[in-house]
Structures are given as C-alpha cells and as structure tokens.
C-alpha cells in the first residue's frame, strides 16, 4: 500500500480534462485508486471517500492542482505521475468537417454547389436525384437498382432543365479534369468522350493518355441510356454539349451495341455537328457508324488510337496488332512451356466492358467463349464458379457482388478464383485486368501477387507452367501509379501488355500457335 500525492500550486486545468485523466490513470495496472483534480471542496470530499486525502491536501486551495493515488508500489506511482503529465500536454486528433444530414442543409453550407454525386441505396437514390435536379444541380448517379421508369423520368427532367443526369449505374466520369467515382487521372487535351460504360471510358481515356494526347471531358450516361425505352437522351445531350465546347475537337462515343433506332438517332446528331467523331459500339456493327460519317473503332484501344490520330491530324489506321517488340518470341516461348493437357484461356476480369471486349476479340479468333455474361445464351456457364473450356469471367457482375464489395476494390474473390484455375490441369493462360485510378483498390497488383505466386507453386508441383497475361488500365498519375504496378507484375513473371486488346490478342495467338503445333 503506497499512497503518493503531488501538489502544484496555482496551476489551473479544466475539471473535465482532469476527470478524463483520472479515468485513464485508473486503467494503469497497479493503480488501485486515483484522483486528479483542482483543490475544490468537492474534490477533497471525493478524495476523502477514496481514502486519498492527506493533511497536506486538506490545506490546498481551488487554484492548486493535485494528484493523489494508491498503488501497489512506488514505481507504479512514478509511472502514473509521468503519464498524467503526458496526458496534460497531449494534442487531440483532428475531427471531421461538419456533415449536414440532408440535401437541403447541404445546400446551406454550399449554396453554389453545381454537382451532386449520389451513391445511396437504389430505393432512395432516385428521389434524391430528382430533388437535386429540381434544385438545378447536375447529377451523377452511381447507384444501381433504380427502375427504368425512374431513369426515364429523371433524364427527361434533366433534359428539360439542360442538366447532366449521369446514370443510374454510372461508375465513371471526368468533369473539368476531376475524377468522379471510379476514374483515372488523364492529361488535358482535345478529345471529349461520352460513354455508357465505366471501364470502357477508363480504358479509352487511359490509352489516350498513353498515346500522349488528352481529354477535355468524359461524360458517363449509365449502362441503359441507349436502350429503346430511354432513347439515348443523355448520350445526345452529352455529345451536344461537347459539340458546343470550344476545348473539344474530337468526340468519342462508347457503348454496348445500342438499340438500332437509338443508334441512328445518336449518330445523326453526331453528324449534324462539325467535329470529327470516333464511335465504338462494343462488338457492334461498324457499318452503320460509317454510314453517318463517324469513324468506327474496332476495340477500346483502337478507338483511342483513332481519336488521338484525328486530334493530331495524322492519317487514321485500324490498329489490331501489337506494340510490343519481340512479340513473336514471347508467343513461341510461352507455347513451348505449355503441357499437352493445357488448352484453355481463363479470363478473370474486374471490368465488365474489358471482359466484353475480350470475349468479342477472342470469339472472332478462337471460337466459343463461355462466361457468366456470355455473348450468346449457349455460352452461359452452368456454374459461374467453375470455368469450362475457354472461360472469361466478369467478377464485377451482380451474381458475384451481391452483398460483397466490387472486385475493383476488394480482390478476395479473384484471389480465390486464381487458385482454383491453377489447380485445373486444362488451364493454359490466365488473363487479368488491373484497373487503377480513384475509387479502385490502393494496390491491385500487390494484392494479387501472393496469389499469383501461390498459383505458381501449385502448378510447379506437377511441372506445369501457366502463362499469366495482364494489362494495367491506368496512368502514372493515378494514385497507384501505372509504372509501379506494371513493375510489380513483371517481377512476378506476369506478361504485361499495354492494353486489354493486346493482352487478349496475345492469349489468342498462343492458343492458335499451340493448335498448329499439335
């Protein structure tokens, strides 16, 4: 039993601060009882209750500071006193800025807000989007689970008021060079984009940057904009705005194959403007695009090439090859390493449109591709967790993400899947996309490396080699840094291609080369 006390005359501290410190000191092991306070009558009474009141403490005044404690030994008392001083001089951590509870009160804090970014549950998202439009704010609606009727209603209202209504299900936009939701950091330049696909916009903008060009704006419309019912409202409003934008010289449109009528409507609006345009309907018919005087892209990469070339005023060519030196050597080398049983490509994708594009390129080159989002109904996998022959999986599709974070953020599902593909003796090639930018995982490559390694250990056991091919959709300006991510992957023996299209074509080339040699 050791009662130790300390008095500091004429030393003021706030009573609340001292109460907090008392509580913290009490937690130290070996401290039985403690009181830290100013010499008020109340505190003396409390000290008395705890048998901590000494004759000296009895004499102090409310202007004097004291500590009185009962500990198992003197060392603990010393420690406690030192801790008190530490706490007295400690600075608190930063607090949050104020977060208003409603849109209306948010307007009070930022009356000149011009854009509302909504990622609320679908049930409420439409209501908030409508409220925003009624208050004359542009909207980016990231939420899905908004009904088609709600979408049409919102877009009509937005059109009426001349506002942007990006979404629902709009995951990417770059407005005034600000990355909104999932988007990359792209150089400024003369190419303006309107896209109904998030990763489609990401891949095209990233390729434009890699080619040394840049963008003015990238407007997202959400995935359903070009359906018959919606009629392409936002795509048309978006491209009109780009036609009127002095900083935009070339316009790019990206979408899944639209409804035929809607396609014509959109293309004729494009035609009315004077600016050159490049259009990519992923896997769609290039003829109708040419008919209206626009340039068809043959892949996301090719679209970027053509846009950049147009902007630079140099001749436009189809780009369906490789920019990698010594590609033939790579193809030959990989083909040799594969065993008899290894025949198939397994694509593990986080970006839906990248997966789409891969399937389109591959089915042209090597035949049927199976998937959870197949090009034809016959291609649907009976068990999406088990690949069959050539399989390309969109891990970001609803079936995989119910109740789980998206694979662009949380790599868990792909980490597990790569191991099961490695165990499958028929797997020859694993294709992966790594999407960088704001919104994505802080280190997509780093997250997969241990599993790529593990996959290699699994295959090494029976003397197999799996060819790992990937592309990284990003720029060196992105938080994750394209260069660093590519380096990490290359170090692990992954073949890193400059674009999704090239990664896919390489995989096809290896398969074709194997067919020849068997």
């Amino acid at each position: 039993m050791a009662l130790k006390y300390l008095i500091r005359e004429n030393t003021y501290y706030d009573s609340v601060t001292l109460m907090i410190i008392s509580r913290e000191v009490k937690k130290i092991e070996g401290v039985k009882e403690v009181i830290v306070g100013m010499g008020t009558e109340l505190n003396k009474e409390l000290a008395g209750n705890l048998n901590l009141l000494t004759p000296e403490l009895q004499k102090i005044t409310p202007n004097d500071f004291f500590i009185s404690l009962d500990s198992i030994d003197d060392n603990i008392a010393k420690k406690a006193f030192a801790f008190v001083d530490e706490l007295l001089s400690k600075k608190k951590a930063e607090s949050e800025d104020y977060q208003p509870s409603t849109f209306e009160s948010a307007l009070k804090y930022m009356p000149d807000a011009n854009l509302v970014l909504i990622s609320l549950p679908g049930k409420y998202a439409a209501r908030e989007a409508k409220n925003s439009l009624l208050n004359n704010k542009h909207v980016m609606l990231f939420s899905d689970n908004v009904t088609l009727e709600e979408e049409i209603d919102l877009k009509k209202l937005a059109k009426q008021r001349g506002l942007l209504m990006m979404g629902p299900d709009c995951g990417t936009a770059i407005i005034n060079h600000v990355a909104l939701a999932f988007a990359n950091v792209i150089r400024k330049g003369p190419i303006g984009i309107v896209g109904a696909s998030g990763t489609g916009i990401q891949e095209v903008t990233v390729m434009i940057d890699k080619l040394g060009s840049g963008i003015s704006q990238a407007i997202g419309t959400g995935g359903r904009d070009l359906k018959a019912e919606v009629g392409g409202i936002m795509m048309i409003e978006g491209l009109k705005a780009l036609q009127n934008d002095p900083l935009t010289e070339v316009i790019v449109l990206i979408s899944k194959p639209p409804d035929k009528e809607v396609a014509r409507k959109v293309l004729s609006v494009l035609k009315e403007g004077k600016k050159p345009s490049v259009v990519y309907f992923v896997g769609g018919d290039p003829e109708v695009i040419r008919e209206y005087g626009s340039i068809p892209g043959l892949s996301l990469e090719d679209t970027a090439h053509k846009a950049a070339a147009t902007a630079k005023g140099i001749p436009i060519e189809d780009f369906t090859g490789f920019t990698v030196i010594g590609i033939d050597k790579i193809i030959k080398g990989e083909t040799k390493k594969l065993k008899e049983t290894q025949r198939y490509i397994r694509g593990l994708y986080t970006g839906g449109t990248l997966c789409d594009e891969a399937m389109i390129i591959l089915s042209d080159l090597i035949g049927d591709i199976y998937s959870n989002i197949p090009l034809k109904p016959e291609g649907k996998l009976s068990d999406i967790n088990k690949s069959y022959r050539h399989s390309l999986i969109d891990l970001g599709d609803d079936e995989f993400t119910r109740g789980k974070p998206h694979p662009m953020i949380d790599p868990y599902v792909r980490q597990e899947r790569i191991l099961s593909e490695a165990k499958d003796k028929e797997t020859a090639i694993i294709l992966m996309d790594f999407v960088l930018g704001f919104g994505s995982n802080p280190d997509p490559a780093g997250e997969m490396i241990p599993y790529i390694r593990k996959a290699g250990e699994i295959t090494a056991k029976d003397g197999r080699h799996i060819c790992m091919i990937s592309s990284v959709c990003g720029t060196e300006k992105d938080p994750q840094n394209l260069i660093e991510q590519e380096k990490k992957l290359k170090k692990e023996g992954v073949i890193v291609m400059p674009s999704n299209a090239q990664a896919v074509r390489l995989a096809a080339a290896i398969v074709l080369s194997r067919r020849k040699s068997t």
Partner: protein
Amino acid sequence: MTKINELFQEELKIINMGLQSFNENLKKQNVKTVQVDWEPPAGGNKKMLSWLDKLK
C-alpha cells in the same frame, strides 16, 4: 450556352450523398465538397413517413 457548357467553365463544387470514400477521393483532388450524413427519412418507418406526408 447550355447549363452543361456552363458547368465546363465553372469550378466543381460537389455535394456527395453516399460513400465516404468518394468524398475522400474528391478531397485528395482538392475539390470543394460537402459530405451528406444521410439517413433514410424517418429511419424508414412507414407509419411516420405517412404521417409526415399528411402534413405536407
């Protein structure tokens, strides 16, 4: 000039309703934002919502 073209000339000032991470990413890009601390109206209580609506 349409409102969209006007937006292209303005500094973006964003109200973020939903994922905090979106707000943080905007802050990293030095964009002025307000994060809404959103809750479903009346906590989703249908009875309360119907009474509130009667008073509107």
